[in-house]
């Protein structure tokens, strides 16, 4: 069973993000980039599928040379091949068109993506790729079982679990809890270094026009420090609290 995993390189969620001077992108300086955490679940699941059913795991990203690092991380975890797609991808749809065209050519049995990227939180790419390929899609998967023809997946729904059946080929998006991603190992990293990352260019005719355009990017406003009420008896405290909630917080 051949699996393609979609991975994206995103800023480490611990880094402080600054907006660059243009106002629509983040400033890459001083930012530590990592593989999107949800994609780690996707890579891990693909590796488990391979270990159980045989086949190959190919990781794919759309991005510049820098994104090779995310691909190498996946190779170091045990993926067999890596493809970096260069395309003028400006929004989720153009990205998905680029991916779908390469996936069509690779012809896998399964595509797994993270349920969303933690940088822009769009959560669209997996679904759009499924739609463009006209394949079944199962999103937010927390458990997966496959047979040669199809699979059964559990998905997280409000307050419970939904179990769905699907045929192959299909697109799945991975939720936290699907598995426990393995660490890359040192020998894995050394081997990954020697593997070639295949570059595929997708031209503008395929990616088409974007349907979304970012017009502004704001960092959240600084929250002011909290207030702690002390040195008062219960009655005075309650009174002061009501006053603050009414006058300052304007909640009541």
């Amino acid at each position, binding site marked *: 069973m051949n699996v393609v995993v979609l991975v994206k390189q995103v800023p480490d969620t611990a880094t402080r993000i600054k907006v660059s001077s243009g106002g629509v992108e983040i400033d890459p300086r001083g930012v530590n980039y990592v593989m999107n955490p*949800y994609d780690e679940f996707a890579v891990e699941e693909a590796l488990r599928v391979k270990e159980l059913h045989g086949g190959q795991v190919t990781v794919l990203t759309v991005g510049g040379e820098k994104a*090779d690092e995310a691909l190498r991380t996946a190779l170091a975890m045990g993926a067999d091949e890596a493809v970096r797609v260069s395309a003028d991808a400006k929004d989720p749809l153009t990205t998905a068109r680029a991916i779908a065209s390469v996936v069509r050519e690779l012809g896998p049995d399964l595509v797994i993506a993270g349920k969303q990227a933690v940088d822009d939180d769009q959560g669209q790419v997996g679904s759009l790729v499924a739609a463009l390929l006209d394949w079944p899609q199962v999103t937010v998967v927390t458990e997966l079982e496959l047979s040669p023809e199809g699979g059964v997946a559990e998905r997280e729904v409000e307050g419970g679990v939904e179990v769905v059946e699907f045929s192959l080929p299909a697109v799945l998006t991975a939720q936290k809890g699907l598995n426990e991603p393995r*660490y890359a190992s040192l*020998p894995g*990293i050394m081997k990954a270094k020697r593997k070639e990352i295949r570059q595929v260019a997708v031209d503008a005719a395929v990616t088409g026009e974007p349907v979304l355009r970012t017009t502004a990017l704001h960092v959240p406003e600084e929250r002011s420090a909290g207030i702690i009420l002390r040195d008062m008896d219960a009655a005075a405290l309650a009174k002061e609290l009501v006053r603050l909630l009414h006058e300052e917080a304007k909640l009541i």
Partner: protein
Amino acid sequence: MRNGSDPVSLSSTGPDYFDIDPLLSEEERSIRAMVHDFVAAEVMPTIGENWLKGVFPSDLIPKMAQLGIFGPTLPEKYGGAGISQVAYGLIMQELERGDSGLRSFASVQSALAMHAIFRYGSEDQRLEWLPRMTRGEVIGCFGLTEPDAGSDPGTMRTRARRSGKGWVLNGAKRWITNSPIADVAIVWARDDEEKIRGFIVPKGTPGMSAPEIETKISMRASVTGDIILEDVEVGEEMRLPEAKSLGAPLSCLTQARFGIACGAVGAAMDCFNEALAYAQDRIAFGRPIAQTQLMQERLVDMLSRISRSQLVALRLAQLKEQDAHTYAQVSMAKRDNVRAALEVARMGRELLGGNGITVEYRAMRHSANLETVDTYEGTYEIHTLIVGRDITGLNALG
């Protein structure tokens, strides 16, 4: 975000004020990231508690082995991955960002026990021990120090006497990291010709015992013990054939000291990150304490020391990669980087106020650990005198 930790709690690998990252290869950064993530997920949540209880988290041994961080610079033939010295230094840094005890465990396994076998052992000995040690199936320790011979190991009293085709060992080693949990000890002893020899002594050899030292208030998450040798018989095949003088154990120390010089920076980096975040959040006199001149000076002092140590560690690793380093450079780096880390940890502790004396925060645990790091593998003074001798040509050591 491994093991159910939240995606947003990944911590960064900095500080990197002098933009040193671009000097690392992609592979070196990957290796650092791997160990960093491992420590963040598997070590940090429980290290404070383990430290308080005086427990080394031994469930980490197979996990560290799986990452491949025991003997990683060794050739693949012996189970290593042939990584660069820079990458090795970064592994030490990330382990010690977690706890000096964790780094000590890895240092002793890789740089002392495995290195001794790799450098001074026979091919048979290497093939017998090293692959199992990289897999973490065999834990090693390194017995050089004695109750009455620390800074001056040349005065060791442990004896190795020939007996038939083998040897009989008698004596006592003290302060030996991992000795109570080790499967094998590298024991250094004086032979009848007064030469220092090294022996591979497996656990359970009759006459050998390794009681734990349980009263430490530093390095509490690392196991330290004695090695008592009473008429311990070992065969000639257990002697390290290439070790012929005190130079042999000392060259192992040079390996380990390099790792310490890199590792200590990790502890300091952790203290700085903790202190900076705390200072920005903690309000006193109506403003964040980070907005006071005194605390800014402290933070700047901390980061300056860290930046210098990082640059020294990187350059030393590069020199070591080309085998162009001197042992005196290693001494200077160990001496300075550890002392700097100790100062940074103490400053971090102060900045945290009352909170700083608890294990919920990291500074005091690091600072207590670094008291050991400042002493073992050659004390601050001994390294001063090694470098002093190197630059003056005059020996003031003894």
